[in-house]
Structures are given as C-alpha cells and as structure tokens.
C-alpha cells in the first residue's frame, strides 16, 4: 500500500472515530433535563427566612420537592400559586414536603414575597449559592422530587403546575413500589 493510501486510511479512521464519539455524547439539553435524576440528592441545609434551621437530611422517609426560585423571575412568580395550591393539598395528604431555595436573591425580598403571596413551607434564602451549584442549577425555576430514601426521582425545568407535581409523584411512587 502506498504512503498516500495509508495516510488517507488513517485520516478516514480518525474522522469516523471522532464522529462516533461526538454523536454518542450526551447533549447539553439532555443533560439539563436529566442531571441528578437517579442520584443521591445533594445536601440542602441552612437557615430559613423564619430563622429556623432546615436540612434535607432530616427529611429521610418523606418525599421532598426542592424548588429553586427567584422573586425576580417571571415563571417563578407564575408557578408560585401552583405550589401554594399543592402545599395546601398536602395539609390533607401529607405526602410531600416542599422546600424553596432562593437563587441569586436577597432574603428580605424573599420574605416579603412569601408574606404577600403565601406559602408556609421552609424557604432558604441565606448563602444559598453553594446549594444551587451543588444541584447544578442553571436557571430558575427548577424543581427536584426527592424520594424518601434520599434519591432524586425527577427533575422539572421551568415553571411547575400542581397537576404535574401530582403526576410525577404518582409515577415516582409506583416506580419505587416496583423496586424489590
């Protein structure tokens, strides 16, 4: 085989190798939708706007909806009444605890927002940058459903609806029941 043929063959193999690797790579969008799902939930702990200490570690045995939000983000404002409605339904069912984590927001604005718009669940608003980065939050609102065993069962990017949370919870419960 002539040197030019060998060179062409090598270049062809290298190109095919590159195409295969790049084509089978996880895309950014896919990663955004599924990041953390099935993994152990990263830590969430800190002082709430009510000056109480709250930690995800103390919620083992319960479903928890971890919601990242900001009072300056429009979809977050739109999803808030849905969360309030879901939270009220939980006062009867008591299945899921909600915790909100402020994202690039100040505690006083967050406290005023909850005063005005309701929502009696714990809200972490002090030094929350590390929590947001631990969870790989890119843009709010983002919500995660954490199983009683402490695993992330589902991730919701964007504003959430009450019915959507209930469906996700139902599916996640079924899935966890199916496991031996």
């Amino acid at each position, binding site marked *: 085989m002539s040197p030019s043929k060998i060179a062409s063959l090598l270049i062809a193999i290298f190109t095919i190798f*590159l195409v295969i*690797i*790049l084509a089978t*790579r996880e895309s*950014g969008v896919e*990663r955004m939708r599924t990041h953390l799902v099935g993994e152990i939930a990263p830590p969430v702990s800190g002082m709430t706007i009510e000056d109480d200490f709250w930690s995800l570690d103390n919620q083992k045995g319960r479903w928890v909806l971890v919601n990242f939000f*900001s009072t*300056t983000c429009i979809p977050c404002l739109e999803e808030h009444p849905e969360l309030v409605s879901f939270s009220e339904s939980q006062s009867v069912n008591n299945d899921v605890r909600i915790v909100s984590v402020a*994202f*690039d927001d100040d505690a006083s604005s967050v406290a005023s927002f909850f005063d005005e718009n309701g929502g009696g669940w714990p809200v972490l608003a002090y030094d929350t*940058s*590390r929590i*947001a*980065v*631990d*969870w*790989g*939050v*890119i*843009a*709010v609102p983002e919500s995660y459903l954490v199983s009683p065993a402490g695993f992330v069962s589902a991730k919701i990017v964007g504003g959430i609806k009450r019915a959507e949370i209930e469906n996700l919870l139902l599916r996640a419960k079924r899935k966890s029941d199916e496991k031996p």
Partner: protein
Amino acid sequence: MKSLKTHYLIWILFLVVSVLSIVFSVVAESPPSTNSERVSILAADFACPVCDGQSLAESDVPVAKTIRATISTMVDDGVSDDEIRNYLVSKFGEDIDYNPAGDGITGLVWVMPVTAGLLALAGTVFILFSWAKKDKETISKKIRFSDSPRWIWISMVCLLAIGLGFFVANTAGSRNSGDSVSGEIRMSPRTLMIKASVAPREEAIEIYDQVLELQPSNVEALAYRGWMSWLGGEVENSLYDIGNAIEIDSSYPDARAFRAIINFRRGSIEEASEDLLTLDSLEPPPVIKDLLASSRFRESVSSELAKRGELLAALELIDSGISSDPENSSLFAHRGWLLAISGDQQLAQLSLISLNASLEINPEDPYAIAYKALVEEKVFGRSEVAEKNIEKFKALFNPPSELVELLKLEGLLN
C-alpha cells in the same frame, strides 16, 4: 560558505526565539497573590453555562454570579484549584471548562494541536526529502544536510513543534488580552469599559457597542451608552438602553441616576422622583452622589414636586436624600425652605431647625443663609436676625444668582 553561515544563523535564531517564548510563558505565569485574584483567575477559566462566549468572570447573569460566589467560598475554605475545577465540571459538565483535563474525549483538545503540528512537520520533511531526491546537487548546496547530522536537526524541530503545540493548546483556552498566545484576539470588556470612560462621546458609544457585542447583558455598558446617547440628543435610544440596564439589574445605581435626570429634563417629575428614591436604597458610588449633589438635582426635582402641590412627596424625597447623605447641608437647607413655604406656622418652626442644621454642617451654605433671612423676615418678622443673615450672604464669594434674584424680589437685597 557565506550562505551556509546565514542558513545556520537563521535556524539558531529561530530556536532561541522559540525556546525563549516557551520559557517566558512558563515563568510569566506567577501564582495569584490573593484569594480574590485566585477567584478571578478561576472564574475566567470557566464558561458561563448559559451565555454565548462569555466566561464566568465576564458574565453578570444570575448563574454566573452564583458560581462565582461559590468559587469564592471554596477558595476561602482552602479548596485547591483542581478540586474546584473537578467540582464545577461534575456539576455543569465538561463544556464549561476552558482548560479541560487531558483524559477522555476532552483530551482531544490537547492532542489535536500537537497532532496537527506533527502532521505539518512530517509533510514539510516529506516535501524536503522529495526535493532532495529530485535534485540532490542543488539541495545539498543550499541545505547541506549531508554536512550535518540530519537526524539531530529533525529531532530538534520535532521536539520544538511538539512543545509549541502543547504551549498553544495550554494558553489558547483563555482569550482575554495578554492571556493568549496569539496576543490580543479581543480586548476584555473591562479593558474596553476603561477605554470608553476616557473616550469622546461618539467613540465611547462605539466602544460600548463592542462591549455589548461581547456581553449583551453588561448593564454598565448599556447604562453608559444610554447616557452618551442622551448627551447626543437621542432621547428614545437613551431611555431604551437605560431601561434595559435597569431591567437586567434593578440594583445598578448609575442607571437609576441617569434615568432620573433624563426623566426630569423631559418633565416626568414623578418618575424622576421614584428613581431617586430607589437610588437612595442602592448605596450609589461617590461619583454619582457628587453628580447629583453638584447639580442640586434632588433639590430641583423636589422644588418641581412642591410647585405641583405635592409637598409631602417633595419632603419625602429630601428626607430620603438626607438619610443616605446626612452631611449634605444643601438638603437640610432645602428641607427648611419647603417647610417654610408650606404656610403652616408649626412647620415654619421646624423649618428653622432644618436651616440651623444646614448651617451647623456648613456655616457658609448660601441657600441656608438666604432662606433663613427670608424666613426670619417674612414668617417671624425678626428683621434684625434677617439683616444679620443678609450681611452674611453679601459677604459670600459669588453666591448663586437664583438666590440673589430671590432676595431682590422679596426686597431684602438691593
């Protein structure tokens, strides 16, 4: 013989320059001296996950600010650069790392420049040998490979090419001015902003355009481009830019101050007052405070509100200014004047308290002296005290003409 010497000299010079470049690039990278410098360097090494072509250091979007805050905490906690790098990559993916690790698919970033260099070199050597084969005599006269150990030269050039390839790959990740092997690929937005601050208006607008191409959400560039547009008479463009800046970052004080001034000039007094009230809660930088104080802008807005019958709003604006700048004698003087013109005797008493407070801060405040003279004469009928203040006023060097006119109008000054 002469051409042979020149030939070797060129090769030696080439080698010296190349080796010195590599050595300099390694030596020039001195370690950061402070934690904040380390944070800046690390932030510049990562892409903002939601921006096009901006690093964490350059972007102002919430996620960039959040990650920067986390890097800062980790640096303060003594976490190493490698640990921070691994942590961020594990959270946001390899795509955000401008200097990826050498393993896995990202290793291609390092391998490809070297491979390309080697291929180019091999091609060159191949061509040279082809020429040598075709015309042995000519080539041997020009290059004289047979006179020197050919393989040493080839090995040296190969090593050099590999070294340079690695050097290019290592430095090309960061593209800020001075960081890149290819020099100023583009100036950093910070450098551009500094340049714009001393440039003439038209040129400054062009520079802000460049910054906004790199960072569409740069509030400083938006606000200052808006301000420059206003100075050039383009009111609509100006309000559009400044409005965008405030929408992106409602806590940026310069934009609030600019919009307040523009609105006031357009006759939108309430809007101007609202922006000033917001500005007071934002801790404006000294340059903005000075701009507003030197032009007595707040006092002008407040006077307009009072003229429109909104005395309470006028007082609220002045009180808000006093809380953020309690050493401003002019604000106390204006407060005293607003209370005096209310027509209420009790408020007139309070007016004197404010005027005296102003004079305590600055005994030569022309506004406090003139207003006090007027209040003493017209409200309390104490001509002697008024006269003393008029004498003080007369002794002032170059008092404001508006006060001279006012005192003349009220018959206290000839």
